[in-house]
Every structure is written in C-alpha cells, then in structure tokens.
C-alpha cells in the first residue's frame, strides 16, 4: 500500500510539467461529506482550458492542459487531509508565433473538518469547513510565488437518487508575503452549486450513472502593486457545467464541460473559452 502511494507520488513529481488559473471547481459533488476514517482517495484529472477572442490586434490565443493529482486520507471520521499537485502544459500563440511551456504548479495542502452531519432514512445532510494552503513551490510562470490561504465551506444534501452540493471558498493570495517584484496577486472568490441524479445501472447496487449539472462562479480581484490595481488583471467568470459521473464500487469516472455563459475581464485580457474536465477517483 505504502509502496503504491509512493509510486504515485513519484510519478506525479516526474510528470511535472503551467498562468492559467485552473480553479473554478468543477465536479464538486460530495464535498460536504467527509469520508470514513482510514479511507484513501486518489483523484486524477485532466483539465483543458482555452483562451481566445483577443481584444487587441495581436491575435493571442492560449491553451492550457492541467493534470491535477489529489490524494486524500480520512485521518478521523471528522477530519480529512488532502494534498494536490498540478502539472500544467501551456501553448501560447501570438501574431503567428507559438510558444510552449510545461511546469509544476504550487503544492496545495488542505484539511477538511466535519461541522455537522445528519443521516436519516430519507436524507443525508453534511456541512464541512476547509482550510487550505498553497505553497510557493511551483516553477517560474506556473506557480504564484506567494503563500496563499484558502478557507472554505461545503454543504452536501442527499435524498434518494438526488444530490445537491454547495460550496464557497476564498483564496487569500499572498497573505503572508508578496510575489515577484513586490506584486500582490489578486484574491479569489469561488462559489459552486452542483446537482446530480443517480441512476442505478442494470439494477445493480454497485454501479451507477449520474448526470450532473454545476454552476461555477469565480471572481478574481486585480493584482496590486504599491497599493494600485495592476491593469489587465482581474476577472469574473460564470460557468454552466453539464457532466456525467460513473461509479463502480471503488472507482469513479467523471466528465464535465464548463460553458462560460458570462464573463468580464479587466483591460485587454483574453476571454475564457469552454473548458473540459475528465477525471477518475479511486477509493480504498
């Protein structure tokens, strides 16, 4: 078991391959319910993000491929520890020239604490709070270069085949320091709402398929330098995200498309295109 985890950690480190922010949740189902004690969860995702519609004459475009790996462990029934490492690959094109970069994002550690949970014959309701920390361990142009604090609150409700999840988190970027050249990166607010309906496959109890509909909002404040807002930074994004989740005993596969139905950027930033998330989860 320990060997298996070590291999996964080493592989994730070796895979280390980008500054598109890969937040704005996606597949946020189950967040308010802490897993059982001694439960391991390994979650791997592939996220594709596309930036386009350059308001300037430079015809800029950006494609980002992110590979986050999350390892979670139920230390106590009311406490879950989590580590996330993202590897990113970025392709940028400008006026016909293309550049590619690969690098490691910042390491993110998080603790989730169960505040409340009620299980009844008819429904399950849970509330959990989280406190996360992003360490400035990422490569140049990929990591934030600051210590970032991320508190959040998650709620989950289940009744029969229906599921609803709501979460909100605030990322205080550079809470303890400043970034490169004294730049203070903008803070982020994330609000996610997810609904799902579970269909049992072939009447089997160990297999199900769930259509998922998520609403993801992210507000990123402008970066600040010497007390002034930095131009061309800061944006608001709102996604409507349909998806599918397949569960087979201890394995979950999920696919989500995030359509940016509303967005507002400061200055001449690129606009957000449709995002794709494909992920797997192994639980043991």
């Amino acid at each position, binding site marked *: 078991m320990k060997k298996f985890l070590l291999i996964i950690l080493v592989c994730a480190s070796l895979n280390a391959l980008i500054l598109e922010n890969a937040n704005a949740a996606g597949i946020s189902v189950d967040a308010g319910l802490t897993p059982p004690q001694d439960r391991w969860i390994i979650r791997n995702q592939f996220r594709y993000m596309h930036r386009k519609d350059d308001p300037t004459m430079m015809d800029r475009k950006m494609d980002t491929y992110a590979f986050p790996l999350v390892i979670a462990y139920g230390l106590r029934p009311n406490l879950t520890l989590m580590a996330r490492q993202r590897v990113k690959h970025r392709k940028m094109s400008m006026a016909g020239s293309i550049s590619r970069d690969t690098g490691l994002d910042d390491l993110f550690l998080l603790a989730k604490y169960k505040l409340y949970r009620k299980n009844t014959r008819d429904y399950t309701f849970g509330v959990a709070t989280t406190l996360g920390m992003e360490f400035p361990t990422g490569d140049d142009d990929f990591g934030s270069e600051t210590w970032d604090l991320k508190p959040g609150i998650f709620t989950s409700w289940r009744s029969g085949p229906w599921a609803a999840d709501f979460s909100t988190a605030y990322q205080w970027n550079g809470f303890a320091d400043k970034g490169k050249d004294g730049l203070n990166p903008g803070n982020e607010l994330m609000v996610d709402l997810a609904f799902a309906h579970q269909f049992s496959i072939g009447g089997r109890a160990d297999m199900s398929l769930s259509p998922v509909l998520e609403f993801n909002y992210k507000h990123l404040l402008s970066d600040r330098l010497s007390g002034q807002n930095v131009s061309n930074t800061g944006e608001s994004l709102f996604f409507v995200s349909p998806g599918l989740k397949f*569960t087979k005993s201890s394995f979950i596969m999920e696919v989500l498309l995030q359509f940016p139905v509303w967005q507002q950027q400061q200055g001449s930033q690129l606009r957000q295109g449709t995002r794709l998330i494909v992920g797997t989860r192994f639980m043991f």
Partner: protein
Amino acid sequence: MKRCIFLSLVVMLFCVIGCNDAEKGETAKTLEASETRQYEVFGMDCPGCHGGLEKLVKKIPSVQEAKANWVKKQLIVTLHPEANDEDIYDAIKLANFTVGKRIK
C-alpha cells in the same frame, strides 16, 4: 546418521500435518461458530461509499465477512456469535454513517 535424518523428516512431516489439521480444525470451528447479522445503516448514498464501511467492519477481529448495500441501506456481517454489536456500531460511526436498527 541416515536414520536420524529420516526420523527428523518424519517428525517434521507430522508436525506440518498436525499443524495443518489443527488449522483446519480451527477454521472449521470458526466457520461452525459464526452467525450472520443484518443492520440498517443510514448515510450511504452511492455505490462508492459502502467500501469504506466494509473496510472498517472487517477490521474487527470477530468479523469474518462484511457486505454493505447502499440501495437497501443495509450492512450484512458474518461474525462470531459472541461478538458485540457495539463494535459494529462503532465502525459504522467511524465511517460517518448512522446505525438504524438491527434487522436480524
């Protein structure tokens, strides 16, 4: 010398057979002395969550087998007749689920 080696081998063989028989006897005894209990469990909401409960229940020394069903909201446990229900209830709590009633 040859006789000593032969005798030692025979003794070892008997020991091995004896041990195997003893194990078989113990297994048979364990199997004879087992019963199946059924509990109502609330909070399991998908095929992926019963694995965590089964893992915790199987850690209890007197438990031979545990099978949870999230659709029926049930946990079926094969265990020693003298096993305590409280151990099962504790495992269910550690899994963040809630015990209903003991069905069987």
